[in-house]
């Protein structure tokens, strides 16, 4: 166990020259002392997160050919082109339906799951471990199982639904935009449940036991004590899980790509999958940059809400 730490220690030590100590030892500035410790992280954040964001904004104002040649500035023309595409209103509506339904269903189901997993019963640990599996597994791989299983001919989930008499005959879940989109919502909920459930479990663990005892002593029903003691205390955990889920679901690519990618048209696209279609099918970097910038702004609004509501910075200041 300590060997892990020692290995890290040795590796890190040789990898990082102690540059910061030498430049201005007499300056004594706190900022200068912090540089060697934080600079590598800053380089990575600026180089691979902030710079591409800025570069994307720049590209969104250029006319770029399919071969990638920059033909100069076009102002906001790319934005106008993307926004006036006939499929865009439908895609925006899909995006809204996608994010709202996945996040709402995920949070509601997770509240119930977490409530159950907070109770004591033999084997609870195993159930918690089982719930982790979709969290760890690649979303691409999880989705392929559903693409296969929901096939109307050889799909095993379809067969199961018929065998338990939920369906009269196999249904082509993945063949038409609307059923494929709705099935994708189900898959997205499935892969979002683990994180959400664990976050709410952590929130439940933080509620003092005597608070619930007191409610019980006062004669509150289980229903009443859940809504007036448990739920208000979960406010932060729910806010946090909701916001992180909004971002994850909004950014989700593989589920819709695999489930609906082979269906022609844009009836099952969100703004995220549309960006990748513009980029990969149409090779339009300028248009996909413009739409990506719009997506980026939407994400930033959610990040702003996260900082405002959850206040993660309060912990460290």
């Amino acid at each position, binding site marked *: 166990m300590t060997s892990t730490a020692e290995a890290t220690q040795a590796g890190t030590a040789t990898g990082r020259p102690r540059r910061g100590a030498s430049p201005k030892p007499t300056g004594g500035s706190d900022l200068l002392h*912090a540089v060697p410790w934080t600079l590598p992280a800053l380089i990575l954040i600026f180089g691979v997160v902030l710079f591409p964001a800025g570069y994307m904004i720049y590209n969104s104002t250029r006319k770029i050919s399919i071969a990638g040649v920059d033909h100069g500035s076009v102002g906001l023309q790319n934005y106008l082109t993307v926004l006036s595409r006939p499929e865009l209103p439908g895609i925006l509506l899909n995006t809204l339906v996608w994010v709202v339904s996945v996040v709402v269903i995920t949070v509601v189901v997770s509240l119930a799951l977490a409530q159950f997993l907070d109770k004591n019963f033999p084997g609870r640990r195993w*159930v918690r471990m089982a719930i982790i*599996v979709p969290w760890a597994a*690649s979303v691409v*791989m999880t989705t392929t199982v559903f693409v296969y299983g929901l096939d109307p001919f*050889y799909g095993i989930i379809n*067969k199961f639904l018929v065998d338990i008499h939920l369906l009269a005959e196999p249904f082509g879940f993945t063949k038409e935009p609307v059923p494929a989109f709705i099935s994708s919502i189900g898959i997205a909920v499935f892969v979002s449940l683990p*994180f959400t459930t664990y976050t709410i479990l952590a929130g439940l663990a933080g509620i003092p036991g005597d608070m619930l005892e007191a409610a019980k002593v006062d004669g509150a029903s289980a229903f009443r004590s859940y809504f007036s003691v448990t739920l208000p205390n979960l406010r932060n955990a729910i806010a946090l899980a909701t916001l992180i889920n909004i971002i994850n679901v909004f950014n989700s690519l593989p589920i819709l790509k695999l489930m609906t*990618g082979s269906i022609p048209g844009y009836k099952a696209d969100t703004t995220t999958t549309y960006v990748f279609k513009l980029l990969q099918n149409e090779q339009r970097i300028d248009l996909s940059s413009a739409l990506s910038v719009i997506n980026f702004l939407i994400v930033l609004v959610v990040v702003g809400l996260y900082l405002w509501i959850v206040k*993660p910075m309060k912990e460290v200041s």
Partner: protein
Amino acid sequence: MTAPAPVALAGAPTARRRRPRGSASPGRTVVKVIAGVVIALVFVAPYLIMLVGSFKSRNNILAVPPTYLPEQWHPENYLTMWSTPETPLPYNLISTIVISVFATALVLLVCVPAAYYTARFRFPGRGIFLFLVVVTQMLQPTVLATGLFKEMVALGINDTWLAMILVNAAFNLAFAIWIMHSFFAGVPKEVDEAAQLDGAGKWTVLFRVQLPLVWPGIVTAIIYTFVASWNEFAASLVILSTDANQPLSVALTKFVGQYDAAWQYVFAVSVVAVIPVVVLFMLIEKRLVGGLTAGSVK
């Protein structure tokens, strides 16, 4: 609200709230166990389909109507999958491993010092630095994929492992900094001060004194980064264009959406790719939430 939240979050409070009263009747316990089994089954069902499907023959897995279990078990799928025409799988596996290992190493190299310093010392710009980390945590390669692609083309490193190592490291750095930050902050300052009295410098304190104490946080950061890099899809999809350079997550999509799908190979590859990361995630189960939420669940 105090910093060592991740450790306390999952473990201790549940233990404290465990009320071993005799009121729970055996009947209710049985109901709970049954419900638990059903829930567990629902969550592992797709992976059971994956596992069973990986042993079917090509004809069997495309049979109409399908069979739940293989008519004949074909463990040799796990050997023949390495030479399928759809994608050069051995290279895809190597790409996945190289990208994940180096991205994880880079994250450690960059985040251990940053997490330690921000947890221990106040300096001008500390708030801004941590703010940038929080914002980075909320961003994903997907929303920046177009910009990342153009940047890598401009740098001449598109379609290379290096590009994906940088991307994975950058987008997992926030989790690593948070989880390690909270562990460093949880070590009493007296420990550092005692070492400093003995003449140890900051780096010596970090490596000789702190690291052995905070290793659970470091292991969590290593595993989380490794698993996230292992599963990364969107950026790899646009940055890595050569078949052999692509990780398994991208390579697998080649099997899907085609009329003639080799599902048994899709599932065999998936089983090989999923098992290690599931085991790794189970090892850090109790600490996952802490790094994702900056310890702010309360």
